[in-house]
């Protein structure tokens, strides 16, 4: 499904990712953990196609497409979704309108008919319940005046509506209180399916108590230094990251 091989990425001439290999199968949930500045968000952004990163070597293939050749919207149409670490506010643009435009663009790209307003609103109401967003929230400007928790819930809500095949959650748990975390996790778990792969970028093991990963990777100094199952996350929680570095000899 997603195959990242020997990916090297630089920002302003400085190498951030120094050869990432990561293969994720359909239906799998992978957690990427690591200290600050290790390149976790860079990886998430590069997969989604954000500008400002220089790919110096390597490849990202998704369903046998060369992802690096595609622009951000084409990646979205192919099923890539990024839940942003810092969702941006877009004043005056209706939250649901943005979503409808995105969903219909994707349907159009897939040769499907566009959803009309009534079908769309049914879908939206159903998905909003999943993350306990009330209707009033839907018609507000995109993230406009949302609290941190609301923004993160909005991301998961959008993911639920857009039904991606690859969802990348970039520190979706950061800044959430325990109740909000539970709601977000419930939403994510409801979206787990055999066709959908999920990559969770996180600092904390806490999220993994709620969303159980199939694999855990430690990203530090631009490389994946260690991979394991959920027990690795527990160990990291206890021992920190230094021992992984030492083990990997970096």
């Amino acid at each position: 499904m997603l195959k990242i091989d020997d990916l090297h990425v630089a920002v302003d001439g400085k190498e951030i990712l120094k050869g990432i290999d990561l293969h994720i199968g359909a239906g799998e949930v992978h957690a990427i953990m690591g200290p600050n500045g290790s390149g976790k968000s860079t990886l998430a952004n590069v997969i989604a196609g954000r500008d400002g990163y220089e790919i110096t070597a390597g490849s990202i293939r998704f369903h046998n497409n060369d992802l690096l050749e595609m622009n951000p919207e084409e990646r979205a149409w192919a099923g890539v979704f990024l839940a942003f670490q810092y969702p941006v506010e877009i004043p005056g643009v209706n939250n649901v309108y943005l979503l409808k435009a995105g969903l219909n663009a994707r349907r159009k790209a897939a040769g499907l008919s566009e959803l009309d307003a009534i079908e769309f609103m049914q879908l939206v109401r159903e998905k909003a319940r999943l993350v306990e967003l009330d209707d009033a929230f839907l018609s507000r400007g995109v993230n406009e005046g949302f609290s941190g928790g609301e923004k993160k819930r909005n991301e998961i809500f959008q993911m639920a509506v857009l039904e991606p095949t690859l969802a990348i959650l970039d520190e979706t748990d950061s800044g959430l209180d325990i109740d909000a975390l539970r709601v977000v996790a419930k939403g994510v778990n409801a979206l787990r399916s055999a066709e959908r792969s999920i990559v969770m970028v996180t600092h904390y093991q806490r999220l993994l108590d709620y969303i159980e990963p199939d694999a855990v990777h430690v990203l530090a100094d631009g490389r994946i230094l260690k991979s394991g199952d959920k027990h690795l996350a527990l160990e990291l929680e206890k021992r920190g990251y230094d021992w992984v570095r030492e083990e990997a000899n970096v």
Partner: protein
Amino acid sequence: MSENTQVEDLVGKQYEAGFVTDIEQETLPPGLNEDVIRHISAKKDEPEWLLDWRLAAFEHWKTMSEPNWAHVKFSAIDYQAISYFSAPKSSEDGPKSLDEVDPKLLETYKKLGIPLHEQEMLAGVAVDAIFDSVSVATTFKGKLKDAGVIFCPISEAVRDYPELVRKYLGSVVPTTDNFYAALNSAVFTDGSFVFIPKGVRCPMELSTYFRINAANTGQFERTLIIAEEGSHVSYLEGCTAPQRDENQLHAAVVELVALDDAQIKYSTVQNWYPGDENGVGGIYNFVTKRGDCRGARSRISWTQVETGSAITWKYPSCILRGDDSVGEFYSVALTKMHQQADTGTKMVHLGKNTTSTIISKGIAAGFGQQSYRGLVHIGKNADGARNHTQCDSLLLGSNCGAHTFPYVEVKNPTATMEHEATTSKIGDDQLFYCRQRGISEEDAVNLIVNGFCKDVFNNLPMEFAVEANRLMEVSLEGAVG
């Protein structure tokens, strides 16, 4: 292609309404003197008093010089190189109905998406279509007449309602008001006249589509709208122009008078030729628009969407003379390529408990220069006056500029003033967010810009709001990065 070039591409979108209809024009040779004014006045069979009024304005104009305080740059205008009168030949016979209108003219309107027939039948909008200087098609007169509403070319009003015209013409914008208004007073050729009698709610939106068509012909429209006690009217003005190289001067004057409890809503969508991507050509739009809330509890509301013209110099204003009167100004102005706009409003509070609201949204792209210039004046007798001003600027790209010049004069200590201003760049973050959700870059720009303009568009009449959205989309096609 870099993000930046993409932005430039979007911004550099060619003007879609650029074409010239070939209709024989009866045009005066270029130049301005008393004879020209006498010729215009005679052509229109005007009464003596109006000729004298024009000549007085001309005498005064000769003593004036162009205002130079606006934040715009352009080469000097040679007023003697402009032709001051042109009318389509067909107007000599005066078409009795749309069937008699020159098919080429109707074709022009169709290209602009203004099918008169459809408008008549579907939209219920009366159209006083101005093609160059003479109005050639006026519709729905009957229905308006039943309501007692007068809506006609101002030249017709001079003939049929001379006492009304004489009473109100120049009573809001005096002939000596400013350089362009004085010029307009001397040489105006046509425009609209609207009179809503006491207590009447105008049964439909009144709409005029302006169009400039003859090369080198300055356009000097004159519009006068009078709303008597307790009456209501909504007036729509929209325009596009054909593409050409020479600069064209447009110096219109619009006067609104609202008596006690009357309401006038004046909406404009302006899309005149902005010049090419090198800044060559385009319309100079130097307009004086002013409303007089003469009566108590009267209300005048200006809403404008300005996307065209090479240079815009325009400050639709309200004189809040009547107690408890209300003035509103909602504006979206877009400057791209080498367009320059210096626009805003004046709210002059004279009466007690008068209220004004200013919402200005400026969007600059390409090499566009955008200035908001506003004056809020609270007179010494204007107890309890209130103003709320919000002016926001949005920059697309890094070669454009946005400037804000707010002036406030408060001579009464009971006034309440609020002012908010923001300048933002359309963010890469916002664009990426939209694109990540599957929205193409171009659609994302439209989405963000329309969101930015929402507070203003909400104040447009329904059919105009749709048009405004479409206009922004066309104007921004291909615009950010």
